[in-house]
């Protein structure tokens, strides 16, 4: 965890494409957020981007209307995402594909709400947000690395704590977890809110970094699909699985996918289905099968 954080803290001084590095950091963060909710509870959040967008707008509203300093506005990003998470907790009653589809629908509903032209005085509606007053990509990048470190710490905690063990127990068998004394509904909601705050912070710091964006940018389903495929590909419920997934797949995407992004949506969409069906533990499972305990 420390090496990853250190690497992305140092890389900007040796590599000039800062936007690309920033995107890596954002996806490393989101992939860990997906890891929290999917890897530890088994809910596949196709609308995960909703929290990212909620964070981006929570940040922007505070900056636009209250001229809040960015770091304070990041707090609002987290709060917005958690508020959306709380609003969506009833979805946790759904199982499997029903949850995933309802979550996707919810994220689209939030997108349409925010981009409603009638809300222009508040959200700028479909015309997008401009935060040129706080534009500071170097600082925003550093904070993004800190947010990523936070996400990594959360997953390290889940891997090594009783709470993380309880979540895995619930994922394995909710009835038996209750028989072990676990309040199943409560721990699921906690995991859901933790994963939402991670995406909320990521969305807030994204808004800060780019400073100009449209609703479709921060609610684009690419974010959900990419974060899910990266986490799944490397291997969920581990710390390094999602990191491996982002580095490999986002690397490939940037190497050859930039000119033809539409194929990548298709390929990655198909990859999610194949991974869920045939390699649910991701690449990491090849190492685990040899008896190696992957952190």
């Amino acid at each position: 965890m420390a090496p990853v954080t250190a690497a992305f803290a140092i890389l900007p001084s040796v590599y000039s494409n800062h936007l690309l590095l920033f995107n890596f950091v954002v996806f490393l963060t989101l992939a860990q957020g997906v890891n929290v909710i999917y890897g530890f509870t088994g809910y596949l959040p196709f609308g995960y981007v909703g929290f990212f967008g909620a964070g981006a707008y929570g940040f922007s509203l505070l900056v636009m209307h209250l001229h809040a300093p960015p770091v304070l506005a990041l707090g609002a990003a987290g709060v917005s995402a958690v508020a959306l998470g709380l609003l969506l907790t009833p979805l946790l009653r759904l199982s499997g594909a029903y949850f995933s589809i309802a979550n996707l629908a919810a994220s689209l509903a939030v997108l349409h709400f925010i981009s409603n032209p009638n809300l222009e005085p508040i959200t700028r509606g479909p015309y997008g947000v401009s935060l040129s007053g706080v534009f500071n990509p170097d600082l925003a990048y550093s904070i993004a690395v800190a947010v990523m470190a936070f996400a990594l710490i959360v997953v390290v905690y889940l891997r090594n704590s009783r709470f993380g063990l309880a979540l895995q127990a619930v994922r394995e068998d909710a009835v038996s977890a209750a028989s072990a004394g676990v309040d199943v509904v409560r721990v699921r909601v906690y995991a859901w809110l933790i994963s939402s705050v991670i995406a909320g912070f990521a969305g807030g710091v994204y808004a800060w970094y780019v400073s100009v964006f449209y609703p479709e940018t921060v609610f684009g389903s690419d974010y959900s699909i990419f974060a899910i495929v990266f986490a799944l590909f490397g291997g969920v419920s581990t710390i390094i699985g999602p990191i491996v997934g982002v580095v490999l797949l986002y690397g490939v995407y940037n190497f050859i996918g930039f000119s033809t992004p539409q194929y990548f949506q298709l390929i990655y969409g198909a990859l999610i289905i194949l991974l869920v069906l045939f390699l649910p533990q991701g690449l990491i499972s090849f190492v685990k099968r040899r008896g190696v305990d992957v952190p």
Partner: protein
Amino acid sequence: MSPDAILRIDALTKLFFGFRALDSLSLHVARGEILGLVGPNGSGKTTCINVVSGLYAPEAGSVVFDGEEVAGLSTHKLVHRGINRTFQVPKPFMHLTARENVDVAIAYGRNPQGEVDAGALLASLNLDALASRPAAELNSAQQKMLDLARALATGPKLLLVDELAAGLNPAELDWVAAKLKDFARAGMSIIVVEHLMGFIEQVTDRVVVMNAGHEIFGGTLAEAVQDGKVVEVFLGGGHAG
């Protein structure tokens, strides 16, 4: 009826889409007693355990545990009050190790005697050699013992065991019977659901015979086999176990 019952079920009814799986069932368990719950397949024994352990809420009737009405409370709350169970088809956390299976219950079970030692608990059920293996690699009898270990980790006052003995060899049966009697001697109350009458005879103080969701007999097993209704249900109903 004993005034000092740890569990008192009265007129309990559980419907599945109109079908009466429990049909005004009444029974009680005294403190430190091992009660055998027997009856043909489909008579509602597992459903009784499921309702008492909070998996299903009953449509009618009452479940008084330790002097308080608990019908309809959720499972984890009942676990914290002191009711736990094993499953007819074992339900361990398959991808977690045997030790982690018990660790969850130690961490969340709120055992009134304090947290038990996972290693000692596993050893007491002959699972110590398997502690670091995923539960999925255990055989069915071992998985049942792991269910039992998880239940014991929470320090239950009332233990409900659902066909724990099925699939065990005679030596293991004796061993499990002795275990259950040890628990009862230490003050635990137990309901044992079992088809093997030898096992029931060995461990229980008293039996309740169920048919079609209702109790038809309560007394010793020796008296039960003399009872006309019981004989009819077992001989006519097919599965005598």
